[in-house]
């Protein structure tokens, strides 16, 4: 298990919204310890049995410490929610919210990192550790099973697809983490690879990338310098034309930079086998685990 505290106590920011309420229910069903919710002006309500407060500091006064937050607050107000979490001493913040302006993200990510806070996202499905029955995110529980494979990804549904494909072959995941589909994210591939390296429960890593930026190339460089665990990869967006954004704000080829080919080359140079299609990932995984 990576990045999660041993004894997770989660506050849900934006708990009374449609998404916040739905996923609070699903996270509780999975086994996540959600201790409080926050929506300004909704103090005293309960959402699926979870008490709602006007602020995190009020929640802390009533129920004691919280050590992780998940944010479902709409984009214009999401940065404020991050600052509130950080200023209340929370060290792990998962920002599910999509469509946050990059300028705002640049600020709250820099602020959080300067305070030693880990931000997952924005625009992330979150983090799930099946062995511990902890899910701080929106991924469907049925796509994940306990095991020894770490998955780090820039997308959501594609990650579920790949996780399901390895489950069918008898594997499972230690931790799965979506870094988020935006141009600026709290964690990059390298940050997460470092965590998996330290994690005794993780035997091998699947890296699911996509076009745009250079996070995959940086990961390749990092792995090439000596990484103790086998890594396999899949990169989406081979057919994407340059200059067009493919769904995710960060998925865009600029000129000749950020293409699948460039990322594949970099990863293969680092001895990371790259699957041509999602269904090939499990075959490559078997191969690297046999080595």
């Amino acid at each position: 298990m990576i990045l999660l505290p041993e004894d997770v106590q989660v506050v849900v920011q934006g708990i009374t919204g449609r998404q916040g309420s739905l996923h609070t229910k699903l996270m509780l069903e999975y086994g996540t310890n959600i201790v409080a919710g926050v929506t300004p002006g909704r103090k005293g309500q309960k959402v699926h049995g979870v008490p709602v407060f006007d602020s995190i500091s009020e929640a802390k006064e009533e129920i004691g410490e919280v050590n992780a937050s998940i944010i479902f607050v709409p984009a214009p107000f999401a940065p404020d929610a991050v600052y509130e979490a950080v200023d209340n001493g929370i060290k792990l913040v998962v920002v599910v919210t999509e469509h946050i302006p990059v300028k705002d993200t640049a600020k709250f990510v820099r602020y959080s990192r300067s305070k030693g806070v880990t931000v997952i996202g924005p625009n992330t499905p979150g983090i799930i550790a099946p062995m511990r029955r902890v899910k701080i995110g929106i991924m469907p529980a049925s796509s994940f099973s306990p095991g020894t494979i770490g998955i780090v990804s820039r997308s959501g549904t594609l990650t579920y697809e790949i996780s399901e494909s390895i489950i069918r072959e008898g594997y499972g995941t230690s931790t799965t983490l979506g870094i988020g589909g935006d141009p600026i994210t709290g964690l990059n591939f390298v940050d997460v690879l470092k965590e998996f390296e330290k994690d005794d429960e993780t035997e091998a890593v699947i890296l699911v990338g996509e076009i745009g930026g250079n996070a995959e190339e940086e990961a390749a460089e990092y792995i090439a310098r000596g990484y103790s665990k086998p890594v396999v990869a899949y990169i989406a967006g081979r057919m994407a034309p340059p200059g067009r954004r493919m769904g995710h704000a960060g998925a865009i080829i600029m000129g000749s930079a950020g293409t699948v080919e460039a990322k594949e080359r970099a990863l293969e140079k680092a001895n990371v086998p790259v699957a041509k299609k999602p269904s090939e990932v499990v075959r490559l995984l078997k191969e690297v685990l046999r080595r």
Partner: protein
Amino acid sequence: MRLLEYKSKGILRQYGIPTPKGEVAFSPEEAVEITERLGGKSVLKVQIPAGRRGKVGGIKLVGSPQEAGSIAKHLLSTTFYGFKPECLLVEEPVDVMEEYYLGAIVDRSSRSLTFISSSKGGMNVEEMAKEYPESVLKVSIDPFIGMQPYQSRMLAKNMNESTDIWKTLTKIVLSLWKVADDYDSFMLEINPLAVCEGGRVLALDARIEIDDNALFRHPELGGGEEGLAYVELDGNVGTMANGAGLAMATMDLVYLLGGKPANFCDVGGGASAEAVFKALKRITSNSRVKSVVINTLCGITNGIEVAKGIKRFLEEGCTVPIVVRLAGNGAEEGSKILEETGVIHYSEPEEAVKEAIRLAGA
């Protein structure tokens, strides 16, 4: 949202960055009049949201107002990179002595806006970085304190060291930062930024891209596109999936299994039947589309909604064959609905893609 050149230059001028004299022409007659006002000669530039226009004949130097008229007529009726120009920018011709590059882009590693300058302008930034890496200076800007004057001096001096030009360039660099900050832009370029005869420093081409997610702070720029993430390609197999990553993977699968994808389309997480219906309408409005593959792995999305959307679309008399991969949440109930419609459906994505390729006759 990528602003057209003339809109980008309008913003630059408001921030004190000089551009060549010019006006926008929506008709050949206007191109003639503007060329007359500019002294009889002009440069006609098609206004499309794409670069490298010169390579495909989208930029023309004309020697007289009559010539401006006939060439404008041709340019306004031609398609460049799939775009029909809505207008032309008609500018004074200038004699360029030197060309530089000045731009900014979001850098993932430093998690901030990074400014780039180079003494070699006029080519695209990747070419420049490859051919003249030593000419490139990158400076990351702290999002809280913004660009500091010393940073603008460094970026400017990297373009030209001679004192008077350096000073002018420093002002331009700082102004461009203000544009980026005020307009929520994470992709800006002045390329080339040129020293012209007489020592004038001018932004000859400009590109400003506004963060779509920040458009709510800039109502004056008009709304962005609709919510659906759709990009057209030149193949004949339409594609749709829930989630951007899966949608890209689906488009790639069509190609890897021997077909040609007609589009990228992410219907989004938690899509309603209405959203699926609308996405199908959009995909099949492309006349090249001979079949459509829908690849859905439902988590937050409900398979029943997907199936209902498809059913509604088929009931409206669609003639393009549709192949569906439906798995995950609500797939069983969804499959029952699909069976009523007779549409082909699979639980494995590759089978669905292969069938769609076969139906497209590729």
